């Protein structure tokens, strides 16, 4: 049982480049989330999904896109990377109405835009 798997772990992008951060979970969780974490700011929600084919914006969605074609996968797309997108990105999943386990986070992707 791998939990939530994110790839890559590290990436350096040049301004204007694009990339996709991959996220896969094997717990059959309906809900999946993308957060970004900047020093001293906590975690900010970028996008989330309540099931395959359904996505919605979070607090900081500008510059990002997502898709959810399967229960397992929830990739995050960065178009035209900007220095402001330098951050650590965490994918997470949860099972709705399950009060026992909270969110399960992936190990994160550290992205630097130069």
């Amino acid at each position, binding site marked *: 049982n791998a939990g939530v798997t994110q790839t890559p772990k590290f990436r350096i992008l040049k301004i204007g480049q694009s990339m996709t951060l991959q996220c896969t979970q094997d717990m059959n969780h309906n809900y999946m*989330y993308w957060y970004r974490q900047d020093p001293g700011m*906590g*975690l900010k*929600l970028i996008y989330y999904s309540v099931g395959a084919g359904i996505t919605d914006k979070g607090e900081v969605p500008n510059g990002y896109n997502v898709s959810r074609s399967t229960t397992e996968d929830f990739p995050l797309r960065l178009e035209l990377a900007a220095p402001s997108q330098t951050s650590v990105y965490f994918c997470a999943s949860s099972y709705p109405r399950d*009060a026992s386990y*909270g*969110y399960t*986070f992936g190990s*994160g992707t550290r992205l630097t835009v130069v």
Partner: protein
Amino acid sequence: QQPVQSPQAVILREGEDAVINCSSSKALYSVHWYRQKHGEAPVFLMILLKGGEQKGHDKISASFNEKKQQSSLYLTASQLSYSGTYFCGTEDSGYSTLTFGKGTMLLVSP
């Protein structure tokens, strides 16, 4: 609205106790607590539900005051392994997403 955590940082000696608070200006359905060690992902500790009881395991427990929209995390007889940053995440309805506080850094020294 981002919940407010206090204090921002705590330094303890092994065996001492600590309390971390999390306050919201909105009515809450639940409060989650997570611990994150440096360079790692946040790890779920516990969830406090509206109308629920105080929870805890081992020497870490938490409470949720619905009238004040405030939760407190209690760490007793702290161990070196308790070091890390603690985040509360608040949920304002049963099907909403979590909004996290800025975190409280806890350092336990020998």
